């Protein structure tokens, strides 16, 4: 039997076909960059996008003599993540050195955790959405978590001069050590079995659920495209009914939720083709290509990789007291999935409405708006309607900004909604008021006051305008009296014009009909 021989594109088999013969087993390793102000072992800043090599010091550059000091906030974040994943928290654990040479790793060892991780043996229930026309209900899968441990990130290498941006063919490489030493939490699942044909979707749902959880914990900005959340997907196939797992590959560079699903699906179809041909899967890392939707061979990886782990002698053990752990447990937010279900019920949104709100990232802002007095319907109407529309072009040069970056607060929206429901403003006035708020002119009430926006509540002025309009349009009055009630619309427009828009159109209609003695 041979291993892969051809250098051309890999063979694959149709997805549905492979499922008749093989059972997929997944293992997902997610690296999360913590959003701490400083690095894991030094005081350097962690902001994304700074000039290369400006956020460094002797410690994260691995200069001779430099020593690490553990970032306490990072340890607390790790414990909170562990607790949120239903893990046990170690009473005593150490860092270890993972030794290997690479230019973007300043010390040529990574300070990580090996056989004493901070969190072990947890789980996370994930919900795979129903497939249209196939399932009625979502599919729930319990992802078993093996461990979550703390480590430091490496620097970032940029390979210059080649066509692919990878080291092969490059003339030289540049290394940015700003990322070196940024705190990472690696979350490793146990082998995920039994998901069958839903395995790629489970992978995606897990990473998505984990992302939501980490966001709710406020420990990371979890941006896959910026690399603050990275997923390595281990995939193997075994013949249906077998008990021994097949040889796995580890796919890297998976930078979106969609890619997680696609990469797993692709690897399954590729593995099946290799196995169908009677060949063996080469245990290796694979590189995912978003554009072409395939993986290519990375470096061979074997279980025999020897990192010569040993306990980091420059650090003292981490020993969180049980009191510390309970104090941190008390800071855990509600599980995001449960919270969504609770809010949907409280707000009375349909499934579709709730999904739109979630996808728009508007759950928190709507919750805050409701909390300061707006109705759930009004909060959704404003944030998902007018404000969402404006956010699309509110940035410099007409680019999009986030809802929270508009400069409108939940209190503003609640106040605006109150002005409408109390009858002071109509919709068009409310939009003008919003213009003022966005322009920084103050709160909705202040803007409406300053701009003189107010529906005329005094029927006297409105009646005078109605009388004038009726007198000026005897032909229309005739038609209405003759039964063509819909002709009243033309008169309402004229009344509103005389009132310079500051009237309630519904009230104007009522007065016209009353004056003419006609039933609407």
């Amino acid at each position, binding site marked *: 039997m041979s291993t892969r021989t051809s250098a051309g594109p890999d063979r694959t088999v149709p997805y549905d076909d492979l499922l008749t013969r093989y059972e997929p087993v997944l293992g997902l390793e997610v690296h999360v960059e913590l959003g701490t102000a400083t690095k894991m072992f030094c005081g350097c800043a962690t902001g994304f996008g700074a000039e290369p090599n400006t956020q460094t010091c*002797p410690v994260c*550059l*691995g*200069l*001779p*003599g*430099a*020593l*690490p*000091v*553990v970032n306490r906030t990072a340890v607390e974040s790790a414990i909170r993540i562990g607790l949120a994943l239903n893990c046990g928290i170690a009473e005593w654990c150490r860092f270890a*050195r993972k*030794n290997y*040479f*690479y*230019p973007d790793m*300043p*010390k*040529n*060892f990574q300070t990580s955790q090996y056989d004493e991780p901070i969190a072990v043996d947890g789980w996370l229930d994930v919900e795979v959405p129903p497939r249209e026309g196939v399932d009625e209900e979502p599919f729930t899968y319990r992802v078993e978590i093996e461990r979550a441990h703390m480590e430091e990130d490496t620097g970032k290498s940029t390979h210059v001069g080649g066509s692919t941006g990878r080291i092969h063919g490059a003339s030289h*490489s540049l*290394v940015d050590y700003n990322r070196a030493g940024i705190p990472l939490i690696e979350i490793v699942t146990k082998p995920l079995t039994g998901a069958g044909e839903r395995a790629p979707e489970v992978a995606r749902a897990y990473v998505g659920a984990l992302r939501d959880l980490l966001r709710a914990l406020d420990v990371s900005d979890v941006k896959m495209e910026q690399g603050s959340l990275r997923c390595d997907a281990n995939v193997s196939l075994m013949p249906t009914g077998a008990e021994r797992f097949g040889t796995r590959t580890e796919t890297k560079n998976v930078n979106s939720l969609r890619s997680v699903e696609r990469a797993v699906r692709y690897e399954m179809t590729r593995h099946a083709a290799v196995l169908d041909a009677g060949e063996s899967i080469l245990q290796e890392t694979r590189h995912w290509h978003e554009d072409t939707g395939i993986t290519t061979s990375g470096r061979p990886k074997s279980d*025999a990789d*020897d990192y*010569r*782990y*040993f306990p980091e*002698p*420059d*650090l*003292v053990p981490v020993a969180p007291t049980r009191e510390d752990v309970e104090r941190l447990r008390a800071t855990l937010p509600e599980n995001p999935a449960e919270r969504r279900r609770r809010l949907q019920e409280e707000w009375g949104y349909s499934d579709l409405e709730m999904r739109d709100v979630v996808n728009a990232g508007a759950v928190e802002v709507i919750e805050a708006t409701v909390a300061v007095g707006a109705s759930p319907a009004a909060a959704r109407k404003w944030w998902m309607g007018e404000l969402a529309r404006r956010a699309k072009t509110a940035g410099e040069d007409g680019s999009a900004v986030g809802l929270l970056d508009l400069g409108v607060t939940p209190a503003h929206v609640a106040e605006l909604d109150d002005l409408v429901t109390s009858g002071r403003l109509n919709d068009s006035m409310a939009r003008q008021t919003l213009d003022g708020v966005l322009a920084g002119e103050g709160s909705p009430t202040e803007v409406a006051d300053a701009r003189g926006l107010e529906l005329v509540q005094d029927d006297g002025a409105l009646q005078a305008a109605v009388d004038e309009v009726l007198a000026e349009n005897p032909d229309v009055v005739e038609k209405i009296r003759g039964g063509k009630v819909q002709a009243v619309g033309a008169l309402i427009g004229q009344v509103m014009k005389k009132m310079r828009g500051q009237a309630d159109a519904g009230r104007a209609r009522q007065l016209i009909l009353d004056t003419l003695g006609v039933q609407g």
Partner: protein
Amino acid sequence: MSDPTTHAASGAGAADADLTRLTAVEMADRLAAGALTSVELTQAHLDRIERIDPTLNAFLLVDAEGALATAREVDAARAAGEQLPRLAGVPVAVKDIACTQGLTTTAGSRMLEDFVPPYDATVVARIRQARMPILGKTNMDEFAMGSSTEHSAFGPTRNPWDLDRIPGGSGGGSSAAVAAYLAPLAIGSDTGGSIRQPAAVTGTVGTKPTYGAVSRYGIIALASSLDQIGPCARTVADAALLHEVIAGHDPMDSTSVDAPVPDVVGAAGTTDLSGLRVGVVREISGSDQGFQPGVQARFDEALDALRDLGAEITEVSCPHFAYAMAAYYLILPSEASSNLARYDAMRYGRRVTPDGSPSAEQVMGASRDAGFGDEVKRRIILGTYALSSGYYDAYYGQAQKVRTLIARDFEAAFEQVDVLVSPTAPTTAFRIGDKTEDPMAMYLNDIATIPANLAGVPGMSVPSGTADEDGLPAGLQILAPAMQDQRLYAVGAALEARLRERQGGYVIEQAPEIEVRA
């Protein structure tokens, strides 16, 4: 010999000799009294370094300009009536293992021949805060791996007592500089005896404080769990003053002990040891254990002196010390193999680029091959092997268990006695070249000093006299429980004073004047 308070130098003649032969305590007193300026004192040492050091090779770098600048500032501050730290204006030499901002720091290696650190080690920062002029950087075995300073990439340092002999190692530069009056005080580092063994073979005093008592931040790491920084001096009281300057908690070193510094300076005034229980460690003394007769004789006399001072002497056994050497030579290389991995020529350090278009890995390989000496390579290979999967438990894991047992031996011994004593090194200084071809023979120099590093307890070497067979100095080692460093100074100071009475002066005063070689 003369009255110790006025060390009229024997046969030195030169004007600088009067000043350089003062103790650090005397220097500090004279500076404080306005009887001496730091510029005069510093210049006297610089002059002597210029004259003597081409023969000794104790210094890898002399920073005359920097030292004199500090001296001038101190003199001006004193003239202005400013309150100054006790050692302000007293010059000091620093082992080239401590990073000094703006001053090349090599760790005795070609690899770091041109490395200029952008930051100061915490000990260096404390020396600067104490306003001590830094004379320069002293020679050492490459990355502190050795017991003779012969493994320095920049040539061996010679022993001031006999220029054909080694000054000990790895801190031979610091011990030779202090012994030869090139500096009154020096900083050393001790991983398995690199302060104490050089002190013993040069007739000087050296202390390895409790692990974590002095910050390691900025000290080029050999073996993180064993390394400790300490003072080198000619007298116990001088060592105590420098100890006090450098000790104390440092938030930049996670292994630094957050506790008050013991009163070592006060302890160095001890003259009576009544009631003190002293244990002689059976496993690390005695001619039957390979200790040179003259070394053992001076040790036995020192025990008599301790008895005279009121101490009770008993023999204690530390059975696991027999395995200390084996455990040490697994733990040290393991940690060193990882600590030295960073020297890959990517961002600093010696870089060798092979022909063609080499990969980063090939550049790393060629640079490490050219930059590291044989002893360093030997230990990196040993350590890499010991940590390898499949060998880890048998080597590194087993060595850590031995380490625990040695720590327990100490605990048990310190239930019976207050301090332990032994000869510091098995022999007096050997001849340059005698042991370079036999690593095991070289390693055995540290047989008595290694247990303290494995257990993290403090140790000191004080001169016990000179051996009858070769006239070369020998040392007595004192060991105390962790964080009881003051006991070393109490015993050391009392013993030093008694031996001075008996022998007619400090041991170092018996050293011959150095014949400058062309």
